[in-house]
């Protein structure tokens, strides 16, 4: 069994996948739905795809409508992130994740951020309240 870290459930579900880490806040409207690629200029993840990955990032940004539409468009092409780990929850992003049924957690043990690396496989168990880095 890999290393486990406590976290807090935002959007329910249990999911395993590969990690993509973003230092910048994320706006799902500025991603290409057909590839899951980030098209926002100057963004930490510019040119990289979040499709089917578990996105580890600070939180969302932008207007009260476009975040949900961004996720919705990604979902139409099957390119939503598989799960999300955030630090700063706000209503717009949280409600979008719940409605689009993407597992999401916050308040993860600080130690997780010291150990997790881009490309790691992790399990998010939102209902069980833990994240596991798979060996």
């Amino acid at each position, binding site marked *: 069994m890999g290393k486990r870290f406590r976290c807090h459930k935002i959007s329910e579900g249990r999911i395993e996948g590969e990690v993509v880490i973003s230092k910048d806040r994320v706006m799902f409207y500025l991603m290409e739905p057909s590839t899951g690629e980030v098209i926002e200029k100057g963004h930490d993840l510019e040119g990289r795809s979040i499709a089917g990955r578990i996105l580890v990032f600070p939180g969302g940004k*932008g207007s009260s409508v476009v975040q949900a539409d961004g996720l919705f468009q990604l979902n139409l092409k099957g390119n939503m992130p598989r799960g999300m780990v955030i630090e700063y929850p706000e209503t717009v992003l949280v409600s979008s994740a719940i409605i689009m049924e993407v597992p999401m957690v916050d308040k993860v043990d600080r130690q997780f951020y010291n150990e997790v690396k881009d490309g790691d496989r992790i399990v998010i168990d939102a209902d069980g309240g833990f994240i596991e880095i798979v060996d």
Partner: protein
Amino acid sequence: MLDGKHGKGVAYAMKIQVAIGESFDAKRMVPITRAHVALSNQEADIWFAEKLLEGGARCRIAPTVNPGFSLSYFKSRGLVSLENAAMMQRTHDAYQKLGAVLSYNCTPYVMTNVPRFGEIVAFSESSATPYINSVWGARSNREGANSALCAAITGFVPEYGLLLDENRFGDILVEVQATMDSDFKYHLLGYMGKKIGEGIPVFTGLPDHIGSEALTNLGAQLNTSGAYGMYHIVGFTPEAPTLEAAFGGREPARRVVITDKDLDEILEEISLDGRKPVDYAMFGCPHYTLDQVRHIAGRLENKILKRPMYILVSSHVLEMAERMALTAILEKAGAELIADTCPDQPCWEHLRGKTGITDSPKMAYYPKRRGMEFIVRDLDSCIDAALTGEVRQNG
């Protein structure tokens, strides 16, 4: 509601709200008495509204709604494709059946949906949430369009964030040294989000009298450049009679000074080069008030515009402008007064690739992906540019 006694749609809306509440550690649900939904006429918006409708949901609290675009105006001029017109019709039908107030206006807080001090409400739309929290002293979190619609359907919101006294105090002291001599300057001040940083800003150094247009601009741009549910203006907004009251007796976490130079620099950053010839002018992001329409009509009396001018307003303002014969003055000059319409909609396809001029940084930001790019200037400079076809330099 959760167990489906009120139907599947209501149970779905409540399930989402409970999940939001749990994620913010809310202890209970509290009733609301008003709501505003940032309808957007985008695919996710229609999908969600229709899903609730199919579950039999109706709004307990009839919310006012944001604009999509005016079907009658754009269809009669042949400016919108059949497909896009059909989408707007679907949005209209869905919200009508849900029982929304079909106001199609992004500034309900100045006229049609005004909460009182302390009232608990659910307002989405980025310019609306800061206005009702800060100027009216009502209480709403920065709702998303979808969470506000859930609240309108259930009549409740989870109690967290800006609904609670302890979360409404200021964090950042923003000392304004810039000359705040026009409504336009508040657009620029609001766009300083990056410099202001995260938290609730407390402004000092502003004039004694600040009009509702200036306050609308401030909130709209704060939420274009960042994410703000609330601000205070010391000696002006109701929860900030003094600096101490605004900060709840605590020390500010940070201090920021905003100068004329900051405002000049941000304008330079967000505007296209002002030496480009102008193809059209567009105002009303957020929607223009009757006073702003009067000002433009006053400037255009007995004049003819060289370039088209579009002024976006609520249906109330349109009706008043007609009664007051302002519309006649504007039409004679070549300006169009349009109700129910947002700049970030597919009805503006004919402006793709052209250079616009506007007084609103928010208008210059979102429609970029529709190929609409703008020079940003104060209103009078924009009017001059529409009269001559070019921007007066050093103006």
